[in-house]
């Protein structure tokens, strides 16, 4: 089985009076993938993400996590252990007054024996690079560090998949870089599937696959190169393209000959170097 999460024709609205926030969205997340989900504000991407670990249940359609239907209540905690969620505001995810106690929270809830909790939280704190802060109070840490505490708290459950709901949105550039570094490390070296909902095109450009949502469903899908080279279409969805892609676009319009699929700064620099040689 290669599927991590499969959503099929998911429809959801918060109240019957409201329009559908998620309106017929389908997507498959494969094991070990790094998927970025993009979309303008209110396109339903966060709402859809909350379906991935049974925080919300679809009104119609199905969501399965490693073959488990999220509507099956008997498997609720297996699902939540499989798909970990990290939210936007690190302050509102940390429960305990000491870093290591917070990282242990999920394992305490799951009834793991204390000796094993110790081993697993030490491992999780090392994986997310906050081990040296383990005895500090969370409010003494920077935003990026706090977010990595939140990630460690989820990683300690040993999930197969990590869903990041705009996890870097409230961080300063350096904190964001550190958090992204941690997430890529978890994805590459530990094979954890990552679904990252983001507003930052540069983050999306580093993903294996990009999904673009609009009005509650998926409208574009492909590798970052495939998606971002369609600059006009991406813009029409009220999204930016990475600056490198934008520059390439403008230069092509001005009559210069540049190859397609330039989305990172390095690629852009290399192509310009070739051109000027």
């Amino acid at each position: 089985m290669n599927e991590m999460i499969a959503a099929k024709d998911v429809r959801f609205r918060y109240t019957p009076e409201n329009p559908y926030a998620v309106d017929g969205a389908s997507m498959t997340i494969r094991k070990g993938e790094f998927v970025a989900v993009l979309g303008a504000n209110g396109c339903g991407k966060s709402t859809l993400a909350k379906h991935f670990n049974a925080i919300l249940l679809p009104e119609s359609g199905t969501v399965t996590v490693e073959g488990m239907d999220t509507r099956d209540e008997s498997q609720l905690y297996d699902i939540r252990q499989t798909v970990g969620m990290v939210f936007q505001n690190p302050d509102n995810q940390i429960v305990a007054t000491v870093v290591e106690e917070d990282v242990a929270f999920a394992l305490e809830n799951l009834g793991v024996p204390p000796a094993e909790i110790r081993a697993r939280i030490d491992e999780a704190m090392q994986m997310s690079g906050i081990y040296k802060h383990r005895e500090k109070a969370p409010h003494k840490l920077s935003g990026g560090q706090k977010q990595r505490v939140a990630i460690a708290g989820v990683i300690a459950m040993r999930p197969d998949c990590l869903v990041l709901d705009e996890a870097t949105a409230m961080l300063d550039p350096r904190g964001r870089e550190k958090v992204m570094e941690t997430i890529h490390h978890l994805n590459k070296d530990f094979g954890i599937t990552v679904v990252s909902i983001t507003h930052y095109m540069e983050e999306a450009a580093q993903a294996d696959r990009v999904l673009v949502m609009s009005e509650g469903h998926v409208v574009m899908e492909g590798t970052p190169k495939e998606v971002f080279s369609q600059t006009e279409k991406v813009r029409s969805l009220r999204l930016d393209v990475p600056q490198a892609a934008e520059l390439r676009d403008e230069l092509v319009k001005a009559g210069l000959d540049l190859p397609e699929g330039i989305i990172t700064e390095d690629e852009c620099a290399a192509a310009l170097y070739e051109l000027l040689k």
Partner: protein
Amino acid sequence: MLKDITIGQHFPGDSIVHRTDPRLKILLVIAYIVLLFTINNFLGLALSLVLLAGLYMLAKIPLRIILKSLKPIIPIIAFTAILNLFFMGGQGEPLIHFWVIKVYKEGIAYAIFMAVRIVALIAGTGLLTYTTSPIVLTDAIERLLSPFAKLGLPVHELAMMMTIALRFIPTLIEETDKIMNAQKARGAMLDSGSAKDRIKAMVPILIPLFISAFRRADELAMAMECRCYRGGEGRTRLKVLKFQPHDWGTVTFCAVTFGLVWATRFVMPGVL
């Protein structure tokens, strides 16, 4: 400025007093309070103070910290002492007789006795909070009350509430600071005007603060659910409280000294 405040009055250290099992410490403090109310003579009172001073020295807590904690209760001490001084009847001639006020020898003794007893009471409970961090204290309270869970007391929920409250105090203080600055930038006058004006000026600070607190609570609840929170049932803990050999030493020591203090009633006549 608001950011620097500390929660509770924990004074970190590594003394035997700090390392004593927090459950035991709570029970011993309760025992000490009971002891203070059973003492009826000055010798016992003096001994209990000596004992407390010894423990404070052992915990290496500076005197100024103890005095600081006593400062807010000075009015209570004074009030109690004065009431006892004037209304305590006695045999023999009053020492001072002025209008309706009569002060007897017994009154003076009892006033001093009561004042010292209150000081010992506060300093005794203070020793517990100085040497135990709030989180450990919460944990200990949860364990001590756990038998009452069978009677339907939501022990785990109360402990969880206390933990979350402790966790969010610094966050909300920081937020209050931010809101105050934001309102000042919009022309709010927070530090001037009459008392009434200043209270009114608090409204635009409290409303955003409350709304934000509700939103935070919502998000936190969701994050807790994501981490498989489902109440206290079947929950394990990272740190397990274990009764150490030295805790038995503490029990023995306190049993002997408390007993000694109590036994002074047979040696010295009571104040009352």
